[in-house]
């Protein structure tokens, strides 16, 4: 009877002791680092699911080469169907049940908004969120959340800078998707134009993802007499916009959001000759750009895709993106040394100095600090010539208010 009690006590002590060791570095054992992620593998945003698959493939590649500090990277990527309540549920599962070390590249602004407070309260790093909303770079209020890509406002500010310099008397029309993605562009544009904004922007029109076409909006924008058009649209609607603008014979100075500049998913369907002269701001090397055919960075990317993600589309820029973010995370983990506690992971994420990711455009580097939670803030303008994007000018920084 006493032996049994002693046995039980010993077992209880052991059970308490083990988690205590893990409590300092949850998700990290001597052989693996557990990483949590939510991605829309189903539902309206499933086209982005390929990012999660590319990142899983990248970590497989790292694991084959020995992992980080002898540990394998285990990415648990769960489907949230782009629905915030589902995201919350999956994140709670990852944090409370699966005990992941940190959350990496969860996709979607509403999804990340839903979990931001929870993760920050629980002090779980929310690393490199896969959205361009500008609100992620707020170290003061949300110490544990950091973005990666140039945010939409930065991009819009770059367009505003260009317009003020090259076409200061422009009459601007804006077509935007009626959600945080589109609205961020509008705000960024107005911010970049400053006081002149109110006079220069002559018409704004929004559309819903449930709208079959945006033809009505484009027609309305043309009739406002604008000579410049800024479009913040996702691929399907971007293609429709390009085609309609051409068909009605309107020839504005056309800026297109960076998310919709893929040759395969936007320009080909729209008709490449219809978008000649269109401008965008880029930060990634386009996989279809012949300039980078022999580029070392892109060569490695293509080898990676062929070997580790053969199902992936090598014309899809999302796969370049996923590769780049995964590489950034690996750098953060390398910088951690052997201390993979959540505090240190966060500290190293905020400690990237001039980190070069080979698939970023030349001259663009990743920089973070304890007060700067915007890893990439530089972009370069490119113009579509009917066959490819031709980059011009210098790398511009879009830092703003």
């Amino acid at each position: 009877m006493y032996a049994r009690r002693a046995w039980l006590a010993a077992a209880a002590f052991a059970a308490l002791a083990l988690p205590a060791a893990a409590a300092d570095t949850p998700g990290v054992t001597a052989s693996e680092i557990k990483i949590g992620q939510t991605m829309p593998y189903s539902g309206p945003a499933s086209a982005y699911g390929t990012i999660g698959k590319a990142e899983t493939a990248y970590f497989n590649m790292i694991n084959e080469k020995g992992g980080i500090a002898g540990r394998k990277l285990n990415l648990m990527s769960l489907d949230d169907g782009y629905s915030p309540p589902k995201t919350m549920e999956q994140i709670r599962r990852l944090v409370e049940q699966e005990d992941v070390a940190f959350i990496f590249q969860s996709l979607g602004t509403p999804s990340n908004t839903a979990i931001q407070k929870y993760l920050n309260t629980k002090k779980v790093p929310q690393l490199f969120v896969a959205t361009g909303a500008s609100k992620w770079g707020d170290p003061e209020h949300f110490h544990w959340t950091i973005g990666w890509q140039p945010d939409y406002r930065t991009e819009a500010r770059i367009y505003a800078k260009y317009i003020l310099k090259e076409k200061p008397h422009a009459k601007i029309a804006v077509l935007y998707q009626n959600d945080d993605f589109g609205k961020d562009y509008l705000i960024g544009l107005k911010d970049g134009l400053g006081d002149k904004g109110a006079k220069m922007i002559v018409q704004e029109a929004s559309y819903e993802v449930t709208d079959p076409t945006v033809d009505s909006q484009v027609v309305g924008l043309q009739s406002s007499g604008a000579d410049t058009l800024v479009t913040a649209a996702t691929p399907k609607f971007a293609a429709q916009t390009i085609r309609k603008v051409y068909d009605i014979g309107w020839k504005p100075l056309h800026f297109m959001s960076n998310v919709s500049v893929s040759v395969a998913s936007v320009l080909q369907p729209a008709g490449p000759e219809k978008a000649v002269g269109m401008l965008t701001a880029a930060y990634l090397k386009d996989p279809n750009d012949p300039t980078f055919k022999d580029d070392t960075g892109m060569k490695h990317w293509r080898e990676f895709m062929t070997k580790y993600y053969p199902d992936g589309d090598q014309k899809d820029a999302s796969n370049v993106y996923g590769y780049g973010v995964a590489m950034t995370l690996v750098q953060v983990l390398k910088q951690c040394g052997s201390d993979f506690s959540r505090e240190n992971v966060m500290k190293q994420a905020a400690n990237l100095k001039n980190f070069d990711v080979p698939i970023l455009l030349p001259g663009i580097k990743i920089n973070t600090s304890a007060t700067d939670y915007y890893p990439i803030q530089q972009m370069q303008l490119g113009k579509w010539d009917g066959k490819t994007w031709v980059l011009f000018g210098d790398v511009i920084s879009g830092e703003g208010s």
Partner: protein
Amino acid sequence: MTTIETSRPAAARQYAGLSLRSWRMVGIAALLAAACVLPFSLSSYHLFQATQVLVYAMVLLGLNVLTGFNGQISLGHGAFYAIGAYTAAILLDKTGVPYWATIPVAGLVCLVAGFLFGRPALRLEGHYLALATFALAVATPQILKYKHLEPWTGGVQGIIISKPDAPAGLPLDGDQWLYFFCLIWTVPLFVVGWNLLRGRTGRAMVAIRDHPMAAATMGIDTALYKSLTFGVSAMYTGIAGALGALVAQFVSPDSFGFFLSISFLVGIVVGGIASISGAVFGAIFIEFVPNIADQISKAAPWAIYGIFLIAFMYLMPMGVAGVVRFAAARFARLASERRAG
């Protein structure tokens, strides 16, 4: 000597010493006891899921009252869920109303909304009502994003809600308290629903579903009952929506799309149409099966959902509750046969 049959009421059938009614009471008491013990034996995450089940159970009871018992098909209950959730969120965000007071307000708002929707819906039957509510479900996210409502709704950014703390003095953490808070609402709602459906109102509702013409001839005010049923159903859903908002700690237009209404429909179909216990079965289904479907097929989890839906309609049209009832009746018959033989 022959016994003369007197016309006194037959004694209630006894099973192992208790009547069927008493067995049911025992069952429900056991269920409640289990429900109260749950928070202390489950991890936070599973408790969170259990709380979600409670919320869905209330929604499904509301939807079942309308669709199962009263025969009015609604494909748009996600809209009422959204109204309840946003009412609670806006009150919490813009006014100083304490969280527990937002629930009855949400219920009231939805009662009115449901009644208002129900009145014009009186003229719609079957397919047409399904169509109108289908349109409502599809249009709901867009209405929530409307820019003129933005100062209240927060637009696409949504509203973040803080999780309420347990009242001082109780040794419960936030998750446990939220579970009990939902339970405090679920149990009375179920009792009220059960009472309602058992009595005259319930019979009137079912009569309207089965034979509206005959019901009207018997003097039942079909218009009033139908609109009231819509209102009550919406109220249940609204209360659940408000509680759901507290559980998820976030509301946004994307949370209340068309697929939410579909999930509710799936819930009552699987759980059992026109069954109160079906609401609980259905809630368990829609909370846990998507995760299972996820594991079966990463790429097409909704296809699995759809297959479940159709399969249930063929194989188990009365839902899980129907199967349970059937099994119970079978068991009872076997038991009595064995005793007689």
